């Protein structure tokens, strides 16, 4: 677990515990996280084009929603991410280096190169390893909340998911169980208006996604996901409700996926430049920077420095990540079970006998 332990990197600054409001220091810390996230996105999209990582799904445009939510949680709360929650991980204190290791799938990758990039997870930070199937984390988060309830812990569990995921089986089951068992769960939906090529209004006919909560007997709230403070306040409130035993909340953070769905996607096939431009004008990062400037908390020079530090941190993490050796071949057989079954031992023997994974081996 060494690679993931908190260090002095910029991202670790997010470890600040959640207080009553997002004071000046924490807002600045949040801004740094958002810049770090944006920088990582930009670099990783380039890395993918250069063939240095295999895949990438940016969160461009969703930074305020992710950071605002994450900063309202405590280290004891559980995060159940989808595959786009990089800024959430950073805000929980996950070192950027650990994330980059997963994107590369090197031997330092805590998930041991088992999954595509973006599907990271960090036990230490109660950031559960993501999977690809849409929505499955939602019921899981509810179950984790039931376990916390049973031990009377004052923690919440937070599944992150998109507008598309509201159509999944687990959305329905998860919200229903949460309603019935009044679990301390905050369902955090980033409605980024698109599920790959399907626009929000073809995903479902409800007026908002938030109102779906009523079908399960608890409140849903809509929040402007480009507004860091608004998101933060909504989550603080939901969290208070939850730990008081008043049950779950569904939060719909309205954002926009400014980039492609992933590096495999070409959004020009299905949406207009005009629509993108409209939302670009509401870029959460620009918005926060403007607010900070007006408040006299960030001048151009200081901003410049934030970006430079971020770029340096990203560059360093990539350099280190690329220097790490690859996963050892026989690691394929680990972690299927707690210990190898005889069948897996025999297959590993067969693998060895073939010389697989060795120089010149098949």
């Amino acid at each position, binding site marked *: 677990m060494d690679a993931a332990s908190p260090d002095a990197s910029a991202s670790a600054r997010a470890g600040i515990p959640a207080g009553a409001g997002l004071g000046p220091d924490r807002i600045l810390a949040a801004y740094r996280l958002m810049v770090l996230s944006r920088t990582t996105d930009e670099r990783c999209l380039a890395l993918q084009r250069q063939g240095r990582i295999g895949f990438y799904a940016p969160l461009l445009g969703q930074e305020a929603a992710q950071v605002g939510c994450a900063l309202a949680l405590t280290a004891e709360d559980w995060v159940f991410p989808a595959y786009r929650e990089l800024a959430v991980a950073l805000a929980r204190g996950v070192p950027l280096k650990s994330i980059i290791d997963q994107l590369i799938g090197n031997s330092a990758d805590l998930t041991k190169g*088992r999954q595509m990039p973006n599907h990271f997870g960090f036990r230490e930070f109660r950031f559960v390893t993501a999977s690809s199937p849409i929505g499955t984390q939602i019921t899981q988060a509810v179950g984790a909340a039931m376990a916390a309830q049973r031990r009377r812990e004052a923690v919440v569990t937070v599944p992150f998911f998109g507008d598309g995921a509201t159509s999944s089986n687990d959305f329905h089951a998860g919200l229903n169980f949460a309603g019935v068992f009044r679990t301390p769960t905050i369902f955090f939906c980033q409605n980024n208006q698109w599920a790959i090529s399907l626009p929000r209004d073809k995903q479902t006919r409800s007026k908002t996604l938030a109102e779906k909560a009523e079908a399960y007997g608890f409140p849903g709230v809509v929040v402007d996901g480009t507004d860091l403070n608004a998101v933060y306040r909504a989550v603080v409130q939901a969290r208070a409700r939850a730990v008081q035993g008043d049950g779950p909340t569904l939060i719909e953070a309205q954002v926009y996926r400014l980039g492609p769905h992933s590096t495999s996607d070409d959004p020009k096939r299905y949406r207009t430049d005009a629509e993108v431009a409209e939302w670009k004008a509401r870029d959460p990062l620009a918005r926060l920077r403007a607010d900070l400037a007006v408040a006299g908390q960030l001048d151009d020079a200081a901003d410049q420095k934030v970006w430079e530090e971020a770029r340096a941190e990203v560059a360093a993490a990539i350099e280190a990540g690329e220097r790490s050796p690859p996963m050892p071949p026989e690691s394929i057989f680990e972690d299927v079970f707690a210990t190898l079954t005889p069948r897996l031992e025999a297959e590993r023997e067969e693998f060895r006998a073939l010389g697989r994974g060795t120089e010149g081996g098949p």
Partner: protein
Amino acid sequence: MTELTLVQAVNRGLAEAMRADPNVVLLGEDIGLNGGVFRATEGLYKEFGEQRVIDTPLSETGIVGTAIGMALNGLTPIAEIQFMDFIYPAFDQIVSELAKFRYRSGGQFPCHVVIRTPYGGGIKGGLYHSQSTEAYFCHTAGLKVVVPSTPADAKGLLLTAVHDEDPVVFLEPKRIYRAVTGEVPDGDHRVPFGKARLVREGTDVSLFAYGAMVPPTVEAAEALAKDGIQAEVVDPRTLVPLDEAAILASVEKTGRAVVVHEAARFCGFGAEIAALLAEKAFYSLKSPIARVTGYDTPFPYALENLYLPNADTIAHAARAAVQAA
């Protein structure tokens, strides 16, 4: 030792596990006040309360999904799926999540959930209360698959499942829930995974059977004995991990093999045993490997007795194997 039916043994196993560890919780449909539709959880609601014997809404997706979350956060959930035929709404959670959590997280998030479910035919349940689709789960890396055939094994394997660290699909042969009784050790009785049970020794042919197919297989062996054919009966008990050594040893001795199961034949578990033998006991084999199984049709209602293997059809196949050149 207490004389119990198989379903009583399950019940005692659950009670034992819950008494020993407050983190063990049950969840499922109608398992509380009602005690489960087969009464496997009878009395547990009263003893442990609704916090630990949790009646859920009608959603297998929700049952397995929340069980996974509980396991990630320190509990040991035992989920009941009312009939194996109704496990498919939870299939995504089982195959995509439960089976792969440890692997995909590089070992960071092991996920120890036990899923109990009654399976199999013989109770006039028709298409949707009779299936045995163990092969789906056996083919899914990351799941352990257990099928007891006696009350003692039911309790002993269940307690091993609860103390294991991996996800376990625990299949209960409902046809013999009450038809079979036997002595069951009291207390923390455990039967190890990956160790077959030699039900009956023999020298002429090996019969492999599990769950509700063990009694008719033993019956077949007894009939064969009257004809001077000594059949060995081996019950693998856990399909994953499989006691390959015991299976190979038996065929190395007898040279002939018949695999029995209720599930459809095509790509059923019997195929794996046959393939294993055709690879690793090839030179010991004296005759073709036979499979006595359900047919490759859905499970029928009115004619289920003609669908299921029975002592006669098993004995017939064994005789043919012995008589083959």
